[in-house]
């Protein structure tokens, strides 16, 4: 299940709910990841655009990869502005044993950064500026170049 929210995430509610949902699933490991907006370079907030149809496919592919290892992945992300010190991204892996979860959360979060169709902007003095220097071309880029 992928969840998208306008604005910052209620991380305690999300992690608590995910834990409750899997309370009888017999998973031995639950590894959550929280992405929090840091105050740097004078930003007030970060802001996000998402292209949901491709994000959903990307996430469904990861759900299949996790399932093949007996695990499940979850994520939630913000759309629009998220102030500094708030969270814009959370994800988690549940698996029967810790090793699979530890490896999957690493691969899942890194591939998320590289290939999830999400665009980030710095918000400075109320203006939205594309975070070009921190952005990565997606796999297969340059097809029309």
């Amino acid at each position, binding site marked *: 299940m992928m969840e998208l929210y306008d604005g910052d995430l209620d991380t305690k509610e999300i992690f608590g709910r995910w834990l409750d949902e899997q309370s009888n699933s017999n998973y031995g490991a639950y590894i959550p990841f929280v992405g929090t907006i840091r105050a740097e370079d004078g930003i007030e907030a970060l802001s996000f655009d998402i292209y949901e149809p*491709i994000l959903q496919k990307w996430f469904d592919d990861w759900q299949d990869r996790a399932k093949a290892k007996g695990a499940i992945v979850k994520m939630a992300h913000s759309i629009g502005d998220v102030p500094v010190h708030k969270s814009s991204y959370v994800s988690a892996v549940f698996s029967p044993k810790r090793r699979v979860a530890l490896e999957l959360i690493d691969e899942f979060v890194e591939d998320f950064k590289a290939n999830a169709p*999400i*665009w*980030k*902007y710095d918000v400075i003095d109320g203006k939205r500026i*594309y975070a070009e220097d921190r952005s*990565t071309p997606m796999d297969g880029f340059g097809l*029309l170049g």
Partner: protein
Amino acid sequence: MIRVEFLGPIGKEPIEIEADNLLDVSNYLKRDESISKWLDKCAVALNDMMISDPNTPLKDGDKLSILPPVCGG
């Protein structure tokens, strides 16, 4: 007609063009400097599926999405 959508920070309205393949699309888009400067960094999706084959054929009614560099989280 092929519908071309520009996602995220490219900030352009969708357009509809005649094209049989990606080369046609590339040649068309390169006429606009404000779009062409993005193209070498952008990935492409056909009808919401990411594609990597430059010889992918196009047909009437297809939707191409142009995806600039990403940074989620």
